């Protein structure tokens, strides 16, 4: 779900820093959207971005489909609890109203758009490129004594470990099932209890791995004081400027709509 997809698209060729800036503008636009025209603009932007990134609609569809339960829950929560005014249907604390429907649909669409744009960013940017971009964009925090290089490295390594830890969690889960553990059945409390024997070994494994990785990094000359500055030489390409201007335009249009 959150992995880089090698490719040769315009997005792949763009600098990580540019993509992060564009992502910031688009994120603002998504959060500001509250009209049908605004959502239509986001729809067009997302469509064009998916096409330019060469990710494929099916792939994106799969990413969204994986979170269908989450989307259903947030839609239903908004639908039933948002507003009792002019309700189509009411029962005890539950009300279905046009405003609730509108709110639920709006929140789901915003989350879907956020997911789509995040997916485009992650699928077209390598973790190291992302780390470099974050490092540059967080540089002003250095004024407050925050080591941006380290912060970026922590984020990059954390992303790197997600698939490994998820594989490890799956192995531990299967080992527990082989010893008679039940994860799928029982009450919510029992199910929550059964998760603990998986969570604890995963955490322990994560600490062990982090410890070994720290040693391996130190052995390869990584120093806290010498943060890597890989992309500091800023060579701006025309496509980078175009992308920033376009994403900024989407954001401004969204404010005006």
């Amino acid at each position: 779900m959150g992995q880089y997809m090698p490719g040769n698209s315009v997005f792949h060729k763009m600098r990580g820093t540019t993509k992060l800036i564009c992502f910031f503008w688009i994120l603002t636009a998504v959060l500001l959207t509250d009209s049908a025209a605004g959502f239509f603009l986001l729809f067009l932007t997302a469509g064009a971005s998916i096409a330019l990134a060469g990710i494929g609609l099916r792939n994106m569809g799969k990413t969204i489909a994986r979170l269908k339960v989450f989307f259903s829950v947030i839609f239903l929560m908004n639908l039933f609890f948002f507003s009792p005014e002019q309700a189509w249907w009411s029962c005890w604390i539950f009300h279905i109203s046009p405003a609730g429907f509108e709110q639920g649909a709006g929140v789901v669409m915003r989350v879907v758009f956020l997911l789509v744009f995040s997916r485009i960013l992650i699928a077209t940017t390598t973790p190291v490129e992302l780390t470099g971009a974050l490092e540059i964009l967080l540089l002003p925090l250095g004024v407050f004594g925050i080591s941006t290089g380290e912060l970026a490295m922590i984020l990059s390594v954390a992303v790197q470990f997600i698939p490994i830890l998820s594989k490890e969690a799956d192995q531990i889960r299967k080992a527990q099932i082989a010893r008679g553990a039940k994860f799928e059945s029982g009450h919510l409390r029992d199910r929550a209890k059964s998760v603990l024997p998986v969570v604890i070994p995963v955490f322990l494994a994560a600490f062990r791995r982090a410890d070994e990785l720290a040693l391996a990094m130190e052995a390869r000359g990584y120093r806290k004081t010498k943060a890597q500055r890989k992309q500091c030489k800023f060579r701006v390409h025309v496509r980078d400027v175009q992308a920033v201007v376009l994403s900024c335009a989407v954001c401004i249009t969204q404010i005006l709509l």
Partner: protein
Amino acid sequence: MDAVDGRGIYYSYDADYGDEPVLKNIRVLIRKGEFTAVLGANGSGKTTLARHFNALNDLQRGQLIVDGMNVADASCHWELRRHVGMVFQNPDNQFVSSFVEEDLAFGLKNYETPEREIPQRIKKALAAVSMDGYERYSPHELSGGQKQRIALAAVLVLEPDVILFDEATSMLDPGGRLEVMGQMKKLHREGNTVVMITHDIEEAVEAEKVILMSRGNILACGTPHRVLTDRTLLEQAELLPPFAVQMYYDLKERGVCLAQCPLKREELVEELCQLN
């Protein structure tokens, strides 16, 4: 000049709480270009000792000179790590990037290698481990043996003088083990100093010199023939003899005497053929 020259090395993880030291007054000498195996059962202190060679563990007592640098001097630790590379046990825990070339560039960038040199150095390191063309692969997509070869390339890219393998084959399947062992032998043939930390006696057989450790002490140091054919010594180290040595003693108990104690399987076959 010696690659490693240490004496009186002592180390305890929690000396303040009176824990038993992991290393007790160790004397170690490794010559340049040697292929040395540091052999011992789990908890014998072999990894702790190896981590002193590139200053990953602080030297608490004693004296240690590695590649002409004094390990006690903290100011030379960073430079020391460029001279002494280390391949760890689990390849998955050594990668910092999702691309082979970026992972190899990590060490080079830490040592401020000029950008124009980086692609060439990466290419050379990958060629050295026979992984040419794998630049754009994700390390996590590769087999265990390939991952460990990439981890080795990430070390070789810094052109170290001493290469430490800390149980680098223990998590691999037989094919992966052969790949990594082959790399070690190749590096040794090319004149590098190779130090292999292992608890697998069949791997130690391949080395030029064996340092046998037990409970924080060095029990013996010498050629594999001298150390690994001594059953009493191996018993003290809580290890079983290599297959060929075990066979030699089993045959001897049954009245079949071979001319000399073989160490490797091929030597055993040779000795057995000579019986006819």
